[in-house]
C-alpha cells in the first residue's frame, strides 16, 4: 500500500439515525479502512438517514443534527476524518448558514444529495459559496436518468455537467460511478467538462468500467472512494493496476493526489 489513500466518498452514522448498531458500522469503516491503508476518510452524514426525514430530502433540523455529528467525529478522530457539509438546497438560507458554520469548524467541502435536480438554479448560491471558499462539491448521481425513481430527485452526469459549466471555478465530484445506473452514459456526459471529477465508489464492480473511465475521463479526474461498500473499493484499487492503462504515478493520482489537488493538501492533511 502507498503511504496515502484518500477515500473521497465516505459516510458515517450517528445516534439520531434510528439504528442501534450505528457505532458498530462506524467502527467497521475504521477497521476496514485501516486494513486498506486509508489515511483520510472524507465523509458526510446524510441527515437522519430516513429516520426522521428522508435520506435524500433531509429536513433542516436533520441536516444540522447530522452535520453536528460529523463535526464531533472530526474532533474525536483527528487527521483520519475530514468533513463535507451536507445541505438541502430547497432551504437556501439554512444551507448557506450551515456551510458558514461548518467551514469555520474545519469542513473542507460540500455534499449534495438528491433533494433538487443538479441543474436547478437553487443550487447556484451553494455553488457560489463553494467557489468563494474553494470547496469541492460532491453530488449524489444516478448514472443515466431515464425516469423518476422514488425517494430521490435524481440527477445524472448530464444534469451535473450543466451545473458545472455555470460554475467553472468549482471542482465537482460526480458520485460513485459504480453506484447504480449506466455509467457508460456518464462518461459521455462529463468527458468535456474539466471541472467534474468522478469517484470510483459504489457496489458495482463491472469489468470494463474502470478501463472506460480512464480512457474517457482520464486518470487526472478520477478519485478513489468507497461509499457503502469498502470491499468493492479495495477490489477496484487492485484492479486499477490490472487495466494496463495506468502508470504508477497515475494510480497515485487516483489514490490521493487528485484529492489533494482539489481539496488542498493542507486541508486534507496529506503530505
Amino acid at each position, binding site marked *: 500500500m502507498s503511504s496515502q489513500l484518500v477515500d473521497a466518498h465516505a459516510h458515517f452514522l450517528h445516534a439520531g439515525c434510528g439504528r442501534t448498531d450505528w457505532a458498530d458500522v*462506524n467502527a467497521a469503516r475504521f477497521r*476496514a479502512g485501516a486494513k486498506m491503508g486509508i489515511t483520510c476518510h472524507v465523509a458526510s452524514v446524510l441527515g437522519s438517514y430516513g429516520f426522521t426525514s428522508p435520506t435524500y430530502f433531509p429536513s433542516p433540523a436533520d441536516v444540522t443534527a447530522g452535520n453536528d455529528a460529523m463535526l464531533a467525529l472530526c474532533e474525536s478522530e483527528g487527521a483520519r476524518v475530514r468533513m463535507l457539509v451536507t445541505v438541502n438546497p430547497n432551504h437556501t438560507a439554512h444551507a448557506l448558514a450551515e456551510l458558514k458554520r461548518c467551514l469555520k469548524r474545519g469542513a473542507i467541502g460540500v455534499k449534495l444529495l438528491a433533494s433538487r435536480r443538479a441543474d436547478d438554479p437553487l443550487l447556484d448560491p451553494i455553488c457560489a459559496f463553494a467557489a468563494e471558499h474553494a470547496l469541492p462539491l460532491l453530488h449524489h448521481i444516478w448514472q443515466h436518468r431515464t425516469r423518476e425513481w422514488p425517494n430521490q430527485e435524481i440527477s445524472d452526469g448530464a444534469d451535473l455537467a450543466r451545473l458545472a459549466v455555470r460554475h467553472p471555478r468549482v471542482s465537482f465530484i460526480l458520485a460513485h460511478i459504480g453506484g*447504480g445506473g449506466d455509467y457508460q452514459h456518464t462518461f459521455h456526459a462529463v468527458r468535456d467538462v474539466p471541472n467534474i471529477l468522478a469517484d470510483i465508489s459504489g457496489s458495482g464492480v463491472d469489468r*470494463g468500467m474502470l478501463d472506460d473511465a480512464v480512457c474517457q475521463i482520464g486518470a487526472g479526474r478520477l478519485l478513489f472512494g468507497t461509499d*457503502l461498500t*469498502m470491499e468493492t473499493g479495495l477490489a477496484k484499487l487492485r484492479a486499477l493496476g490490472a487495466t494496463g492503462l495506468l502508470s504508477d504515478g497515475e494510480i497515485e493520482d487516483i489514490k490521493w493526489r487528485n484529492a489533494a489537488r482539489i481539496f488542498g493538501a493542507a486541508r486534507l492533511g496529506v503530505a
Partner: protein
Amino acid sequence: MPLTDPSLFIGSYPFRHVPHPDPDVLVRVMDREGIDHAWVGHLPSAFHRDPAAGNAELHKALEPYRARLAPAPAVRPDFPGWERALDEAVAGGAAAIRVYPPQWRLAPGDAGLGDLAIASGEHKLPLVLTVRFEDLRQRHPLDTAGDVTAAAVRSLARADEMVRLVVCAAGKDFIEEVHWGLTPDEQSRVLWDISWIWGPPEDHLAKLFRTIGPSRFVFGSQWPLRLVQAPRANLELLPDDFVGATLGDPAALYR
C-alpha cells in the same frame, strides 16, 4: 483445499461490451488470483432460446484447459428431450448444470425445473443459478427477464434430497429469505457464492457468517462480468475473528 469458483462464464454478454471473455484469459486471471478450478458456463447461452449450440461451443472452447476449467452447460427443462441434453452433459464431463429460470420464463415451482434438479442430482451434478447478471438500475431496456426469485430457490431445494444448488449473485436479504425458509436438511443442499454480498461497513458477509456459518458460502466472482478481485477483497476485510474462515467447497457437494 483447492479453491473452486463455480460462478464463471466465457463468451459475450448481449447488453454491454465485456472485455476479452475468453478461456485463455480466464486461466491467466485464475493464476493471478490463486483460483485453482472453475465451473464455467457459456454466457450467451443464457439468452439463447436453445442452449445446445452454446453448450457445444463451451465444450470445444474449454477442451485445452480441462484440468482447470470444467464445463457447466445449460439444460432447458421445458424443451422436449431435455433428458438427452443432460446425458450429453454427463458424458461431456460437466461439473454442474446451469439453469436460467427468469430468462426462460420458468416460474417458481416449475415442475420441469424440479425434475431436472432431481435428475441432475441422480448424476451427482449440482444446479447453478445466477440470481442476476447486472445491477437492476443499469439494465438495458430490452433486458426484462428479472432476477431469480427466492421462492424459486426454496422450491428447488425442497424438490428432493439428492438436489444440490449453488446460487450465485445473491445478496444478504435474498440468502436469509431462502435459508431460514428451509429445514436444516434443505439448507445443507444450498451453497451461496459471495460475489454480491456487501462487506464493510455494513458487514453483510460477516453477519451471514455469524448467523448461517461460513461453510455454506463459496468463493465466487462472476467473471467476466465483474472484477475477480472483489471476493478476495471481501474476505480480507472481514472482522479478525473470520479472517481465514473455511468456506464451503462446491466440488464437495456430493461427497
